[in-house]
């Protein structure tokens, strides 16, 4: 390849760099993510008022329901379509965590239960867990040392 082509590549490479629409994506993520939280909050209020659960129990049951809904929508092939629209809005809430595990499990089903599903289920969610545990340790230690 001659120098003319090399400089053409350097020039055109910069010119054609695609722009990602951060503003619109952020807005979509904000509203869909907020909507998911709103649904969870409504479930918590129903659990408290109709089923007379205390606050902590209502939270735990609501989380289980949201995980179930996230997994169900993944299995039905809907969650990835919402995710394409909402981006981080559907990844950050716990439904996204459920989606990452369910989708990995579905994908690995063809390799069997142990080598497929069990081995691959945390393929994407694993990094979230590791970061969660490390952060919990660090912030827990800080809280302990400061005696809060």
């Amino acid at each position, binding site marked *: *390849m001659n120098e*003319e*082509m090399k*400089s*053409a*590549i350097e*020039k*055109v*490479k910069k*010119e*054609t760099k*695609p722009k*990602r629409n951060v503003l619109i*994506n952020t807005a979509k993520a904000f509203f869909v993510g907020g909507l998911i939280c709103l649904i969870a909050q409504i479930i918590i209020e129903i659990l408290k008022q109709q089923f007379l659960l205390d606050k902590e129990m209502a939270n735990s049951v609501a989380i289980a329901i949201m995980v179930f809904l996230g997994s169900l929508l*993944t*299995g039905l*092939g809907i*969650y*990835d379509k*919402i*995710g*394409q*629209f*909402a*981006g*981080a809005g*559907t*990844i950050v809430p716990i439904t*996204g965590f459920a*989606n*990452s595990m*369910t*989708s*990995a499990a*579905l*994908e*690995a089903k*063809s390799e069997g239960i142990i080598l497929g599903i069990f081995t691959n289920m945390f*393929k*994407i969610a694993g990094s979230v867990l590791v970061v969660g545990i490390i952060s919990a340790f660090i912030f827990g230690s800080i809280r302990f040392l400061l005696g809060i």
Partner: protein
Amino acid sequence: MKLGKQSISFDTIYLGQAGVAAGPKEKQGPLGSYFDQVYDDLYCGADTWEKAEMQLMRDAIDHCLLKNNIGSGEIDCFVGGDLNNQIIIGSYVMRDYDIPTLGIFGACSTSVEGLIVAAGMIAGGSFHRVIAGTSSHNATSERQFRYPTEYGGQKPDTLTFTSTVAGAVLLTDTPTDLRLSGVTVGKVTDAKLNDPLDLGRAMAPAALSTIAAHFSDFNTKPEDYDLIVTGDLSYFGKDMLVKLFKEINIDIADRYNDCGLLLYDRDKQEVFAGGSGCGCCAAVTYGHLLAKLRDKTYKKILVVATGALLNSIIVAQKETIPGIAHAAIIERSGD
């Protein structure tokens, strides 16, 4: 005969009929009617994605044999490959055929790489009939190179959509209406781009390198071809390639297209930047373009299959993504 630094011209290599099998999205696309076998289900009647891709490859080979009215015993060799680890699809499919087999890997440039190897074997004078084939499947590629198919991560516009197609074509030294008259073997070209979700632009410099070398080796210009197609640069890669040629004062825009854009209707189908995968160039060329040459829409075309040479490990190690492109001239013989 060797031409220039990286090309070969052939006088007596002909193309027989081809077989193409395609999945649901490709069936619904603008070229759906050109394919020999289409499926409404991404599983193609199989129970895993890998077996589905094998089914497509098998269909393509079967249709190729059938349309050429030839038995597998009369084929001297099959040359082919795919995107799966250790090119497992082609190898497993060939268990069922009584045909000597050469497995090749050139990522999505495999289709033309196969034509080059097959033509070389026939030009050597020993083999008379060789089938070149390749396949890709959206789900087998997604799980190997990206995320699980149902994962809800947002895909950028630059992402190319791996096509679910397989194509196989017969090359022979018995004269037919179409001729493979020359090839240019590409060089691995690294433009230091590193986004695995933007492979079209990573491969465009390789296409530039090969097509420019092709023009120089054959002493031709864009006007000598009725059509120049790249394999799977898709929207962003195509745009970049046109601009790259403009920089070196060659205008290809009026006769240039990309198989990834021909295979789907981007306005109506959710394929992001357009189609990609080994099968993309094979299906469009063997299914659609050979028919267009045979109905005399085109007389001479240049097919440039483009491949991004990466795997998920090397990309995670922050390496850049090199590309490769191989070119083949297909023209009507005898007129």
